[in-house]
């Protein structure tokens, strides 16, 4: 999966956390067969919960590309791709890393 956070590729220690883009910390999770870097376990849980919600909303079995723009203060506008199909959405998390808002902005799937 190609991950872009606020304009920069992410998902490794050198590039940054797959959810927020930070290079602090060193938490790893296996996601869709890839070892992804996160700054902490909260970001990892948020990312996985977001991905599950996305798959539930679209019926996709995998995500090829995820572009995330935003942060804690603004929430996150995202664009996901699966082959030729795509979905734009806004996501926000609660204090237990759960998805509290998942708002579909536009879809082509």
């Amino acid at each position: 999966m190609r991950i872009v956070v606020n304009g920069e590729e992410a998902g490794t220690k050198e590039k940054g956390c797959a959810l927020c883009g930070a290079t602090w910390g060193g938490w790893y999770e296996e996601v869709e067969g890839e070892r992804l870097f996160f700054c902490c376990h909260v970001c990892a849980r948020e990312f996985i919960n977001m991905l599950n919600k996305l798959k539930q909303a679209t019926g996709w079995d995998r995500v090829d590309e995820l572009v995330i723009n935003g942060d804690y203060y603004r929430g996150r506008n995202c664009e996901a791709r699966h082959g030729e199909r795509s979905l734009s959405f806004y996501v926000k998390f609660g204090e237990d890393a759960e998805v509290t808002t998942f708002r579909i902005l536009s879809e082509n799937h």
Partner: protein
Amino acid sequence: MPICPACEIKLDSWRSVTDHMSERAQRSDPAHVMWLNRNLSLREMTKEELEERLEAFFSGELKPWIISRFIEKFYGEKPHPFMVAMQNPSREVLLGYVIEHQHFLVNWVRILSKIVYETEELPVIRYELGNITTEFVGTESSPAHYELLLRMGESLGMKREKILSTPPLKGTVEAINTWRKLSQRHWVETMAAMHSLELVAHKNLRRYGARIHYFNERILDSQDFPEAVKNFLREGYEADQYHAEEALDLVERYAVDQERVKVTVLKSFDAFSKYLLSRLERAWSLEAEVIA
């Protein structure tokens, strides 16, 4: 005295705080990593750089420090989305404001009452009771902000009973819970945590570097909005500058541990951001109802 802004242990120097934070960040401790991400940098730093940045971040007199940090968080390069929405607010955005803010205001006066109970300083008691009167009780000649808020909702077509019976969204609940926790701290910290939020409608914040005002001031003279909307916005526009400034002067006068007050204020700002997003989320759900 230097303090870890995440877990709030006191240490003898900023070097010790740096060692402590670096060690916690290396272990991916969420509280420490999140604090660094939200306040200093997303990019990992050397210990030397981190020590320098931490010390610089916490330096400065309390009142201007709070104002600067508030502007950075809410009115900086990327203003908060709720403030952006308020530059040209839809009916749903204003109703989202009404529905979530009624819960904020009830909690507001409950926490201010706690300050009154805890402090022995008469100027603080007088100030807080005045604020409670303006925000929640009102006078014969001047309705309370709470009442003006409900009238704004009614003017936009929502019945008072419907407004009052709508429970808060989860983000609002989480923010209120944070403020209730902060109210267990020393009353000066609680006072700083709450009244720094009144900077949001401070009409002269642009002088200090804010990029936009809380709302588009043209609304106050526009024919496109009901009078009750203008009355509510105008009241905050006129009052919050004095509320915030006077309260922050009192905080500065009575604060003993400035670093701890600063750490508390940042926690309040994080809760406030979450709460403002709830107003927008409420607006989106109202828009969805209209479409359905």
